[in-house]
């Protein structure tokens, strides 16, 4: 029996590709904006959204998108103010999101924290065809927005003052990248879980930047690494019978370790060439 014989594995593979493409694409901008942990923050807040979905009987993905987006906007507004100590404010939001989720799920009849497990740690094989449509449309929206606003976001993430002095709508772009990130978190939630979501936004980018010289290639290569990690992790978790989310993240981290070594070697031989 191969992985393609099972409907749920085919769905899972398609979802894995979507997540592998979108998370690192957004991640490249977020890492450059020095917000590598933004995904983690949004992930915690999204948990409250998931629990609200259970409580109200609506699809947890839908409520998670809304709550995560609101959380992301709040994070961006705190960050943009810049005067109050931003990291503490963010931390408060993280804890609030996590505690809120646990409390709401406790109050939901017939549910317990165990219901949250698949959202916390990912359960990509439970993706249904309806889920797949939602994930696919969100992923396409994210990639389309990044394409349309990419040039402006590059300037924003490089130097916000220069973006301002170029007449770019800095506040809008800041909110846009935050909302794009929150949608991505929800897209990736089913694959790797809210607690590991940020890994897919950060690790492939960190891997890729060991090997590249330009922003564009960093982003493209990180998307390749992202897909390799999600598809490779999913496939091996299927055959090894281990949890998919953890396998995906561990595979991505292994890729980083390899790239670190290769990158050092490449840079050393480059400088060797130029001094020779």
């Amino acid at each position, binding site marked *: 029996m191969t992985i393609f014989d099972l409907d749920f594995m085919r769905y899972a593979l398609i979802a894995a590709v979507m997540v592998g493409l979108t998370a690192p694409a957004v991640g*490249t901008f*977020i*890492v*450059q*904006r*020095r*917000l*590598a942990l933004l995904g983690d923050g949004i992930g915690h807040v999204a948990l409250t959204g998931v629990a609200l979905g259970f409580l109200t009987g609506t699809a947890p993905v839908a409520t998670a998108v809304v709550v995560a987006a609101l959380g992301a906007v709040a994070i961006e507004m705190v960050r943009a103010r810049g005067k109050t100590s931003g990291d503490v404010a963010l931390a408060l939001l993280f804890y609030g999101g996590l505690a809120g989720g646990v409390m709401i799920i406790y109050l939901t009849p017939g549910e317990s924290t165990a219901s949250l497990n698949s959202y916390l740690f990912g359960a990509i094989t439970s993706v249904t065809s309806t889920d797949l449509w939602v994930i696919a449309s969100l992923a396409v929206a994210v990639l389309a927005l990044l394409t*349309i*606003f990419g*040039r*402006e976001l*590059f*300037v924003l*993430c*490089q*130097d916000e*003052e*220069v*973006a*301002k*002095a*170029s*007449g*770019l709508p800095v506040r809008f772009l800041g909110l846009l990248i935050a909302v794009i990130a929150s949608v991505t978190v929800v897209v990736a939630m089913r694959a790797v879980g809210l607690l590991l979501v940020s890994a897919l936004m950060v690790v492939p*980018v960190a891997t890729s*930047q060991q090997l*590249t*010289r*330009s*922003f*564009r290639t*960093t982003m493209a290569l990180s998307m390749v690494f992202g897909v390799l990690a999600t598809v490779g992790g999913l496939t091996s978790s299927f055959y090894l019978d281990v949890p998919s989310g953890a396998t995906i993240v561990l595979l991505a981290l292994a890729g980083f370790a390899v790239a670190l070594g290769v990158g050092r070697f490449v840079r050393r031989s480059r400088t060797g060439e130029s001094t020779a």
Partner: protein
Amino acid sequence: MSTAFEMTGGQVTIDGRKILRGIDLRVDDGEVVAVLGANGSGKSTLVRSLLGVQPLSGGSILLYGHPPARFREWRRIGYVPQRLSVGGGVPATVREVVASGRIARQRRGRWTSAADRQAVSAALDEVGLSDRAGDPVSSLSGGQQQRVLIARALAGEPDAFVMDEPTAGVDAASQRMLAKTMAGLVERGKTVVLVAHELGAMEPLISRAVVLNQGCKVHDGAPPSPVGTHALPGHDHVHPHEPAPAESSLPGWALAQEKA
């Protein structure tokens, strides 16, 4: 002749500390204005608030006759910040950074045009970095990075340049390149507002100097002319300027000249 920048009673307070204390400054089209002063005198804050990047706590600013919030012709202005921001460490090539200077001229969702590419190549040429276009900016020296920032502003083909200490910590080769680039801008009649600690080779290009001391304008007019040993042939006007003591009423440049 129109006015590029006009600040009236400009005040900036950051964390309760008064950085600018009511500055009036007008820069007409085609002027080359140097903003001089000791460290901490508010030079950088002045030019950043001229662009609306640093909000004023009092007074007003007009960019080509409009307040920053309602200004739409940002393509007319090129900002050269003090240093290249590396952000979170995602690599970017020299060409990518310089090309981002076109942003105010580009329409959202449109591909990069031939005019864009041409302007970027011309800007790279002008600062002598064409051969480094594909290299990551992080691999460049401080002076070369400064040239990248200037090329980014050049690529936007603005009418006015606002430069925040383009000569700070720059090697001799980059100094010469900067002076040459500046001369080219002056020749083309561009407006330049330039923060500097010392003018060096750019001195002859300056049409007006504004000197700040502790957030106040203490001189606005002809550039402080070299006196004493400074006027002697062979003096290359490179000497360490010391920050003015807080109680002194003399501007930094005057103090330094007294000491020299």
